């Protein structure tokens, strides 16, 4: 194009000028500096009769079917506590904001919760891709960031995130326990990994490889959002894996079970805790079968499945005081969906927060809440110890392994604890309080 050079230069000059103005006095875009420490000696979100807390949750969108029960469970516990007088006379207002598992929305709703709703603390923000985008913000703003619903290792980093306290057993700890179990109980087997292609897969593989390096014959990955696993399952079958360890969310455990049944491949499946809720799996298998137009009992696929857990599984029923208690609370205050282990996950999260809030004293401040977390040393409802001290705030520190058969769970590996590094795996010694030992829960 023949363009008048003076005219063409004009917008260019305008842009350069504007950019020069912007650049002047501009320090590096990534240099956020230390700034002033946020003041923790405040009780933002606490009034005379309420404590407001928030969470970002996928209430809609692709992740909702698996996880929306978590906030239902938590809400049921808070409703129960509120109906029985609250904590130190204050009721708990729980704001579960929908982020549809989209990190962009997470950033938006978290800012709303902190700036507009002025929450006292964030409790149970869900997901690694989502919560990792607000963990900096929460720590900078001085908002206690308790119990993210994710097993990423990054929540246990007191130096970088002094206000973040983990909850779920991290992916490396649980896969170490899985790895050791497989290497002991299936010592001659060839092992395949089925891993989600993100930090779940990376952190899990690190733990598995510590014990299964020599036995592993195949590593298959899937992308979160994929529609089928036929290539991955065919790959595992081709390499002759007799045991398949899954670090997958429930949707993909169900798909893996169905796909291997379809091609007549029958390995021993063992899943990590995130995909191990058999109640959720039963629901998924039924709905997949319904879509495919075939009937069939979900148990045909599920029988023999081994899963790692750290909370009391609902299948234990009346044999466990906490399951019995939580079932009672859920029946009264919960939703219509059956009580699942995912619901229990949210309920236990809420119980842990209630314990911390009670220990934070009559007039809680953010600083006293953080201090109170130290008193959660005992596992609470979980079957393994819970770490929330200054140096280690990894949450649940281990797990146990069960085997599913026709709606019943059999314990095949007793609760064990370990660390996220090279440390040994040791039997868990946990001092479980009973529901009636916890003030706000006992009033009922």
């Amino acid at each position: 194009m023949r363009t008048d050079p003076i005219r063409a230069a004009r917008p260019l000059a305008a842009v350069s000028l504007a950019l020069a103005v912007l650049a002047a006095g501009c320090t590096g875009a990534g240099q956020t500096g230390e700034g002033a420490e946020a003041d923790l000696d405040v009780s933002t979100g606490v009034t005379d009769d309420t404590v407001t807390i928030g969470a970002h949750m996928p209430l809609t969108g692709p992740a909702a079917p698996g996880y929306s029960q978590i906030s239902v469970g938590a809400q049921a516990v808070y409703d129960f506590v509120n109906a029985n007088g609250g904590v130190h006379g204050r009721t708990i207002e729980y704001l579960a904001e929908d982020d549809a598992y989209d990190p962009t929305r997470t950033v938006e709703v978290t800012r709303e919760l902190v700036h507009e709703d002025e929450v006292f603390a964030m409790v149970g923000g869900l997901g690694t891709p989502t919560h990792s985008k607000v963990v900096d913000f929460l720590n900078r703003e001085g908002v206690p960031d308790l119990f993210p619903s994710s097993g990423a290792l990054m929540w246990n980093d007191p130096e970088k995130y002094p206000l973040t306290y983990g909850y779920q057993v991290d992916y490396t700890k649980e896969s170490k326990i899985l790895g050791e179990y497989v290497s002991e109980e299936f010592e001659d087997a060839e092992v395949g990994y089925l891993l989600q292609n993100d930090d779940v897969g990376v952190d899990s593989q690190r733990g598995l490889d510590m014990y299964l390096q020599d036995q592993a014959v195949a590593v298959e990955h899937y992308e979160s959002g994929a529609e089928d696993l036929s290539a991955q399952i065919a790959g595992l079958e081709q390499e002759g894996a007799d045991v398949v360890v899954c670090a997958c969310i429930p949707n993909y455990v169900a798909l893996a079970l169905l796909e291997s049944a379809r091609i007549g491949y029958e390995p021993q499946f063992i899943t990590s805790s995130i995909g191990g809720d058999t109640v959720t799996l039963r629901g998924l298998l039924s709905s997949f079968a319904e879509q495919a137009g075939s009937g069939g009992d979900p148990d045909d696929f599920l029988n023999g499945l081994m899963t790692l857990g750290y909370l009391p599984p609902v299948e234990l029923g009346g044999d466990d005081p906490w399951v019995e208690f939580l079932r009672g609370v859920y029946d009264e205050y919960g939703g219509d969906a059956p009580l699942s282990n995912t619901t229990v996950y949210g309920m236990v999260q809420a119980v842990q927060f209630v314990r911390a809030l009670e220990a934070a004293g009559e007039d809680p401040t953010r600083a006293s809440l953080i201090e109170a977390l130290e008193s959660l040393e005992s596992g609470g409802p979980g079957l393994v110890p819970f770490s929330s001290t200054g140096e280690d705030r990894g949450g649940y520190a281990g797990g146990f392994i069960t085997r599913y058969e026709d709606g019943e769970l059999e314990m095949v590996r007793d609760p064990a604890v370990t660390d996220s590094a090279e440390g040994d795996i040791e039997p868990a010694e946990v001092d479980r309080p009973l529901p009636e030992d916890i003030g706000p829960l006992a009033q009922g």
Partner: protein
Amino acid sequence: MAPSTHRAPASDAGSTPAGSDPAASARRGPRSVPGHPLLGHPLLRRLLLAAAALAAVAAVTTATGPVTDLRVANAGLFLLAVAGLQVLVGTSGQVSLGHGAFMFVGAYTMALLVVNVPALPLAAGMAAACAAGCLAGLAVGAATARLHGPYLAGATLMLAVGLPAIALRFPDLLGGANGLGFSTIGAPPALAGLVDDTQWRAIVVWTVALIGLVVLATASGGRLGRHLRAVRDDPTAAALSGVPVGRVRVTAFVISAGAGSLAGACQAYVLGTATPSTYGLALSLVLLAALVLGGLGSLWGAFWAALAIVYVEVAGTELAHALELDTDVRNNLPVVFFGAVLIIVVLAWPRGVHGALSALGRHRSTPQQTGDS
């Protein structure tokens, strides 16, 4: 902006069979402007308008809280993204379903620079993101310059679906499905107490967006704009008139991609995150749908589109939560709401919100000129 709206009826109608002779519109442009007595004025007027808009944004953000600041910033960056798409679709007539991919390029360029070169000034990061987007636009434009209509749409669709997967392919560098998270600099210390961080970010985004808009308006108002419209209305006639059709099409892609990429960089800067799922096909389709809603052919259309993207979604979500519907319904209601608004607007005013407003304005001043369809 304003001068093109006066000419818009004649040139816009060219996309319908009943429109004016495209070759004539192509000829008329180049001849009339060299003799234009007020050559310097459109740019000056645009800069003044931009300054006024920036002052308005500063005023709005001063009066409101951090959450509104964030929405205002979002509106600014979507304005820039849709304005870039406007040049491509509305002015050059090339339908792109892959505009979100250019936002992806900008967001990741910005994210990588902030993470790896924290000392780099923000303006340099923005410029780099814009340059990266222009390069991507050049590559895509050159590859697709011979395609038109559904073939072009198909090729750009591929871009929207495929490009974000690059982040999954290189998880060590690009963070895989989790994407990248980082903190960006807030308000300069000199302004502490006067503006807070979120307000400062909104102002920065609008500064970038308005500079981008001035460039886009200048480009599409001048000689290049006439070439673009000539190519859109009839490529053969344009070629016969001496317009280099291929080069003009590629230029449109480069400009549009640069704007989209800058918008993506703004988004990364405001939210401190870049994740592949944000820049999927849905984003590209929303940008295009919003453009149609706002009105094709004028940068004002992009303004209404940006407001629609930010506020119709918010309204839909709030409506869904207020009605306390079943999850499956609630899940889809914001999308349905957006779709319904789109259908109603397009049925009532085929040329979008801006078309409706400018028809209203013309009706008031010169009633006899309204019957252009």
